[in-house]
């Protein structure tokens, strides 16, 4: 498998087309947060909305345009984090960042399994200019969670 094929694995091509969680919907939850991220090098854009139930990332929806890596990555992370706790989603993010920094090699520990489909992005690590593409969705996720936590906290104060 060439480096190019390793980057554009079938799993990634499928996510780029299937786009799990694509389409923003109104969420009837106390803690909702949204984030808009732009990658100016390639013009990628993602708007991602998160709804929390307690400490759980209950729902993730997004809208975006951009290269296949960026779109597939948001799709994969949506599938991955929904239903997990905020702490787990932080761990997943850290694992994914570590993978991106690993120059095309698997991490070689249980984080590879933990990442599920997102582990297929391993090949992106060989192309420094594309790492930002794979990360844009994760940036939006973390920012949206932070917004949701803030909005939830406010909600509580006002109750």
């Amino acid at each position, binding site marked *: 498998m*060439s*480096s*190019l094929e390793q*980057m*554009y694995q079938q799993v990634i*091509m499928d996510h780029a087309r299937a786009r799990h969680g694509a389409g923003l919907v109104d969420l009837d939850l106390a803690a909702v947060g949204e984030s808009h991220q732009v990658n100016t*090098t*390639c*013009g*990628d854009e993602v708007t991602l909305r998160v709804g929390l139930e307690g400490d759980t990332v209950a729902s993730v929806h997004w809208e975006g*345009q*951009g*290269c*296949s*890596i960026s779109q597939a990555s948001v799709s994969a992370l949506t599938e991955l984090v929904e239903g997990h706790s905020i702490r787990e989603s932080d761990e997943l993010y850290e694992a994914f960042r570590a993978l991106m920094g690993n120059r095309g090699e698997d991490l070689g520990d249980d984080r590879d399994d933990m990442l599920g489909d997102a582990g297929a992005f391993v090949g992106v690590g060989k*192309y420094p200019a*594309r790492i930002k*593409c794979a990360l844009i969705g994760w940036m939006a996720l973390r920012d949206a969670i932070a917004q949701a936590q803030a909005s939830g906290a406010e909600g509580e104060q006002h109750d």
Partner: protein
Amino acid sequence: MLPDLRGDFPLLARTVRNGKPLTYLDSGATSQRPYAVLDAMESFEREHFGAVARGAHLLAEEATEAFEAARASVARLVNAASPDEVVWTENATAAINLVANGIGNASAGQGGSESARFRLGEGDSIVVTQAEHHANLIPWQQLAARTGATLRWIELDDDGRLRLDQLATVIDGTTKVVAFTHASNVTGVVTDVSAFVARAREVGALTVLDACQSVPHLPVDVQTLGVDFAAFSGHKMLGPTGVGALWGRKELLDVLPPSVFGGGAIQIVTLEKTTWHPAPTRFEAGTQPVTQAVGMGAAAEYLLGLGMADVAAHERRLAQILREGVSGVPGVRLIGPVGDPGADDVLGLASVVVDGVHPHDVGQVLDDQGIEVRVGHHCAQPLHQRFSVAGSTRASAHVYTTEDDAARFVEALASVREFFGVPA
């Protein structure tokens, strides 16, 4: 026609991505440099380097001579009336900002009555075009915001040509500055400068030409063009990064207020007050990019040696191959004039949209074959918005680009949609 010049450019001999030969088609972003330029800089650094225009010692003398000779070479390349009309800057962006910020400072009263010619305010307008690179757009947006003037623009037609029919209405008695590109870095279309200049003169507006893409590729004669200022960069014309040039009419440069202040640019300094030198010195505060100027001068000499008419003919030939080639690839759209691939007025470049594949992904597949192109909006977002796309994939040539390079690009482009499984 030009001979095959690849041997003059050391970098082109390298291989990429596991031993593939390099097909460098990103010259619109930045060009490679010939031995003539690299050697000029290296021997300057190793043998003749010293402070310029400041010392009385031998190295200072030698460095000053080389530095001023380089200015004369660049002046000759664009046929400036005198080397004093050439100001060294960091790059073309800095050159355009020098004019815009100078006008801003004049509008705030700096330079006194001598600089009144540059004053802008509410009720005045600045005209740009929809084809501009951000470097020749944002400084004018900001100047408009700072002075209260209005920003207007000339639009593009579907072929990527500027709508000359709008000149008469968009440029009017309120217009004080007309800033426009000599050639688009996305469509490759060369502007009819004379039409802009004629209209600007009718209303008494200053003209600022973005000559970034023209000076490296076409014969440029600033006196014949009749503009007031022109900006270009070293690194796009086979010279080094870190240097660019502003050409301007001497009588205008001498009264444009500076906007970067420091040593060398001034005549007398007390703690209270400072008086400026005439141009170009007034704009060259601080230690200039000396070695880089020497390199840009050597690049100008190299281009003059090739002959700009031959350089332009080479560009036209490559434009034809690139544009005819991509027109034949299914699912690929050219941005810019599509009907006349052999037309005289386009640069040797082609920006394309591949239906169903994002430019970044297109570029990656080409890169895997050793073909280096630029993807994205090429710092021309308004132009891309005009064609309702976020970005494009651009192949751009220079004197060292061969017909084979162009053919390889076209061939590789034809494989992209299949790689991503886009239905035909």
